[in-house]
């Protein structure tokens, strides 16, 4: 990870599309590009980093079983932890988000994406999957207590030739750039940090991974108290 000045905002794409080129990745790239344009127009410098889950599939599978992300997956999660905004895209294979996408989210710390703005996006072979985002991704990111943008972006094959897709991308990008530019994530996660549960050794941004609350009831008992 290159050193960034503190004013630079970092968008992270999480892409569960596995082909190359991947329509999920193309959708994410378009959303990211528009978001960068918006941020730049507001005088905010921003960059994009991409986590393609395909090459991490083995590590994701291992982490699901062992409970401990390792290697390139651990690096990807660290990168995601520091994101100012996220663009999450998944293909729909069997009536739902891809298993790889869900497995990746399953190995994240519960507090990793607290108050992080996220655009939810999906691609599918049929418009009949259009509700996958609202039906599955929104509840998932609600659990993660992130901030999904009001507009999500779904693309079936016919959408790629439809200017309406571009408009939805614009809308989502505006919403994401507004959230990222507002600094709302930092405000919530900094001021409210202690109000959320955090695991020992967690990698969420803003967490001192191995900070311990020595004032807890159990810590008092550990030190001979009652």
């Amino acid at each position, binding site marked *: 990870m290159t050193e960034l000045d503190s004013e630079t905002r970092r968008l992270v794409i999480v892409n569960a599309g596995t082909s190359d080129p991947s329509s999920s990745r193309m959708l994410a790239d378009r959303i990211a590009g528009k978001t960068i344009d918006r941020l730049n127009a507001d005088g905010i410098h921003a960059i994009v980093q991409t986590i393609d889950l395909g090459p991490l599939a083995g590590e994701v599978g*291992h982490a699901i079983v062992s409970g401990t992300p390792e290697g390139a997956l651990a690096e990807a999660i660290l990168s995601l932890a520091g994101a100012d905004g996220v663009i999450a895209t998944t293909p729909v294979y069997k009536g739902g988000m891809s298993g790889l996408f869900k497995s990746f989210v399953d190995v994240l710390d519960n507090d990793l994406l607290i108050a992080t703005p996220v655009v939810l996006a999906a691609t599918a072979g049929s418009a009949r999957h259009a509700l996958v985002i609202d039906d599955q991704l929104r509840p998932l990111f609600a659990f993660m207590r992130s901030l999904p943008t009001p507009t999500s972006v779904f693309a079936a094959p016919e959408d790629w030739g439809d200017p309406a897709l571009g408009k939805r991308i614009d809308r989502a990008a505006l919403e994401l750039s507004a959230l990222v530019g507002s600094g709302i994530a930092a405000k919530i996660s900094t001021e409210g940090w202690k109000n959320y549960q955090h695991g020992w050794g967690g990698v969420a941004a803003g967490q001192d991974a191995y900070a311990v609350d020595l004032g807890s009831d159990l810590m008092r*008992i550990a030190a001979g108290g009652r």
Partner: protein
Amino acid sequence: MQFGIFSVSDITADPTSGSTPSEAERIEGTVLIARKAEEVGLDVFAIGEHHNPPFFSSSPTALLSHIAALTERLILSTSVTLVTTNDPVRLAEEYAMAQHLAKGRLDLTLGRGNTVPVYPWFGKDIRQGLHLALENYNLLHRLWREDVVDWEGQFRTALQGFTSTPRPLDDVPPFIWHGSIRTPEIAEQAAYYGNGFFANNLFAPIGHFKPLVEFYRQRFEHYGHGTQEQAIVGLGGQAFIAKRSQDAFDGLRPYFAKAPVYDHSLTLEQWAERSPLAVGSPQQVIDKTLEQQEIFGDYQRQLWIMDHSGLPTKTVLEQLDLLGEEVVPVLRTEMAARRSPGAAEAPTHGSLVRAKYGDGEPRQPRPNANRGDNVTGTSPYQDSDPSQPARHPVFQ
């Protein structure tokens, strides 16, 4: 630096023959393994505690006392003693008794265990597991240090004027290691009391437990027991050794393939590369262990799990020959050479007696005649000050 082996007492079918040892065979084999550990020059043998098949070790003190009678030098320990579901009063009594029979060659590692149903079997609630562990040790600590204890807590019947018998050998309690792989509260408790901290160092990436060990070291210093490097750290591990590296991998592979404790999305080779699992030639096992010293700092006890997953007793005994003859002697020399002069020695009963009494005679408690209670009058032991009554319970 102490070197030894620890076992969880699993009775598992040997995947190469398909045959499962009987409980009798496995228990007998475990005694042989412990005696072999002493014969090949290891320092420690530790056994776990389980209350369900396919494990046999529901009663660690019985096994350890028996082994104590058959050995001269070996330190007997546990891996782990369940401090959650056992009554701390029974722990105090049973392990003090075993400590006497072992003539001080006994210590304990306390843990919460990883068998979920064990809690209801003993009338406990797993959601209170950590609270139980912390509070139970607080009581155990006092039972071994105060002749007469008044006590009230969340989980067990209050005690008034209770004396745990026998008093620890030489009035010096067995050394305690607190075992944990993820819980800072346990590390805190170990540090608060100046006890040891043990990380099993299994099934996780190399160095995974370092933050917890470091936290323990910092808190040990915070509580004034010494510097961080004087903290008492134990590490587990697992080894399978052959003269030729490839033979070690080939030998372990069928057992690894059936072992439920491994994530089999990785190969044996990947496990050996990523985790503290040491498979290979004696030199490879030596290198892996020296790497732990580099990562965790100087530590006081290294235990390996050698009998598991259906490995036959004969193989385990051969493994111990290799461990004792070709690995540990080199490690003793190498680790001592790399050791900071300020690092603590591993505590033993002898060192704890010296720390408490110097050159003086250890206390040998002799009880007074039975008077029916400990609540009235002095301590129940003859060396108590007659003018100093036992502390009376506070009725509120």
